[in-house]
């Protein structure tokens, strides 16, 4: 994860034409400086404009001009007749409930919707600097309990909905959020262990981190879905979603540990010495002095790890857990709608993009703040 900053502040220099001060209004000056600064630059601009224009025209034709926005019931004849020429957006209003919430009971789907909103509110609150206090842990605990009540039900007059009926966006958010919520403390412990002076603990932590980071996530998910039941004693049967969740916690723990270790290395030696001189115990020293500084150092790379992790939850498709991508893929098994998977994938891509883009913007802003 490298640092990412705003648009090129330091473009390749040596464009002598740029320094020439041309006359004309602001727009003309801007165009000359940024689009037609030299012969090569003008050529590039013209070629790109032609290509971009062509692409935009065909995109608008496909996505808007020739697109079909609604069809009666499952009669997809109108869509089929424009196939290849126009998009069939009619598939989205038909299938969006299934894509977002899977097989959750239809009349109860306000509950997962509310759970998703709770998640978004939780992320928003956690991103505010004014909330970076100890109380944040309580807010998280309360929010996760609320989400559990909404999803499972069984109390307060809500009907019970078992885990195998969950699906879509809430499952993606649950896998990502719980993975991070438990992976983060694990990562801290492992990062501390990896820098410990005790050889046995250090080598255990190194083994764990390198083993998890050296293999693809899919092999961990296979482990969770096929190997895990073999390791359990008779009669113990852990739900598939929970098994995948455990795999994600272990996965996130290893990656976060490496990021946090980077932060620990950036804390000056003097801080350790000062804490030791005050006679603080190991845990007090790390909890009060070292870790708060270390984590502040690595917030931008931590957010980047969160983004990667959020995208990686989509891999549960391969072991058949109904997350957002799996519901999207399943929604077009229906023969009437089968040819219109591109539209469905674009719809889901927009959802993933919004979440990741928000996070990456946020990480960039934080970085700009810490730099000044």
């Amino acid at each position, binding site marked *: 994860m490298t640092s990412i900053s705003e648009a090129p502040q*330091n473009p390749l*220099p040596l464009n002598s034409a740029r320094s020439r001060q041309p006359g004309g209004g602001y727009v003309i000056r801007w165009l000359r400086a940024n689009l037609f600064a030299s012969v090569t630059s003008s050529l590039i*601009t013209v070629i790109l404009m032609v290509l971009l224009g062509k692409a935009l025209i065909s995109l608008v034709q496909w996505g808007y001009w020739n697109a079909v926005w609604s069809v009666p019931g499952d009669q997809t004849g109108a869509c089929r007749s424009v196939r*290849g020429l126009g998009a069939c957006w009619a598939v989205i209003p038909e299938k969006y409930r299934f894509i977002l919430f899977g097989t959750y009971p239809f009349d109860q789907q306000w509950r997962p919707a509310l759970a998703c909103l709770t998640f978004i509110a939780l992320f928003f609150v956690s991103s505010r600097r004014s909330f970076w206090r100890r109380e944040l842990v309580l807010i998280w605990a309360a929010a996760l309990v609320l989400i559990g009540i909404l999803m499972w039900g069984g109390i307060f007059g809500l009907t019970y909905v078992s885990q195998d009926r969950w699906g879509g966006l809430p499952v993606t958010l649950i896998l990502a959020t719980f993975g991070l919520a438990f992976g983060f403390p694990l990562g801290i412990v492992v990062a501390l262990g990896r820098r410990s002076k005790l050889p046995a603990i250090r080598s255990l932590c190194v083994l764990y981190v390198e083993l998890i980071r050296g293999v693809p996530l899919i*092999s961990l998910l296979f*482990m969770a879905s096929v190997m895990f039941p073999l390791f359990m004693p008779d009669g113990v049967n852990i739900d598939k979603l929970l098994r995948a969740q455990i795999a994600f916690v272990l996965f996130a723990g290893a990656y976060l540990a490496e990021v946090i270790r980077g932060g620990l290395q950036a804390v000056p030696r003097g801080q350790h010495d000062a804490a030791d001189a005050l006679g603080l115990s190991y845990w007090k020293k790390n909890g009060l002095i070292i870790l708060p500084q270390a984590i502040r150092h690595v917030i931008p790379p931590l957010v980047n790890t969160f983004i990667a992790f959020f995208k990686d939850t989509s891999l549960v498709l391969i072991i058949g857990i109904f997350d957002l991508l799996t519901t999207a893929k399943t929604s077009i098994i229906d023969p009437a709608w089968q040819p219109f998977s591109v539209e469905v994938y674009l719809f889901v891509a927009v959802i*993933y993009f919004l979440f*990741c883009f928000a996070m990456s913007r946020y990480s960039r802003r934080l970085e700009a703040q810490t730099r000044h």
Partner: protein
Amino acid sequence: MTTSTPELRRRRQLRFSLNRQQIVGLVWQVVVVGIVVAIVAFLWSNALHNLSARRISTGFAFLGREAGMPIADAWLAYSPKDTYVRAFIVGIVNTLRVAVIGIVLATVLGTLIGIARLSSNWLLSRLAAVYVELLRDIPLLLQLLFWYVLMQGLPAARAAWRPIEGVFLSNRGLVLPSVPIAEANLWVIATAVAGLIALFVLRRQLMTRQEADGKVRRLWPYALVLVGALPALVSLGLGASWTVTMPELRGFNFVGGLTLAPEYFALLIALVTYTSAFIAEIVRSGIQAVPRGQWDAANALGLRRSFVLQRIVLPQALRVIIPPMTSQYLNLTKNSSLAVAVGYQDVVSIANTTLNQTGQAIEAIALIMMVFLTISLGISLFMNWYNARIALVER
């Protein structure tokens, strides 16, 4: 600290013999290792019990049995009658085939986009930024499924697209013209590679000599001989044929040429475009990390732009670029395991089929992990070696 009184000296000895920190450390280690060992032993005994209850034998003996699984897109000779070992080797070759070609293409594409992002042309740099942002913020698996669906939506072989003569794009994949490789061709290629290595060594020697006496020495005559004339001579001597065979449409399929199956092609496109977005950012920040003063100083000396890039900026940028690039290469290799989602038979996909056929879950997953740990280790060792070579030598 000078301790003279006998009382103080005695206290220090006492402290040393009962070093509290060391004892606490020892206790911690024993406790943690004990817990880990207990958990592993518990899981292991459960596994043995469950395996015997399900009558699944342990061990790798199954590898010698007949695999009976078809592999559509194999580079090595393979039939379903071959053993599981053979199937695994075919899978490893398939993984490496997509990873190695993917790494090369992603590096080229990523570098171009990273440089485009720094262009003084506003349109070009904005387009590159949009490309990076779009591809980085959508899950790779979703992109892969998207490309695969697009690939399936292409016209049938009869109505294949022909962007250039001899290149066909259809729902059968991409078909390219190819040169049939015989033994003579291999020798010629080997000579050219050896010539390239020799040229590289020679270049270093010429450079050190140039640094010593300041005289400019030309490299291109050597290049002409080592990479041009020598392989040509070998080719003539062995009578190697370099005629390009053009693919032709016969009936419903193509004959001749090199076919990239749609599964392979979709996986390659997805991996290359996705990774190139990350590489572009690495290259951009690497170039930006070189202070502007370095450009200005080189300009003031009147050096040519290409020379400045090659000898002053790139060597400094590479130091920043190599470590994150290594982790991108590792990511691409690990991500190639998503092949299982579109049915390209890489090592993970073959292990998965094996697992379903034999029930040997532990062994199959252990094999996947061993293969990837070996590949990861290989890439890191190579990149660490390269990094150490180009690293700043402080005098």
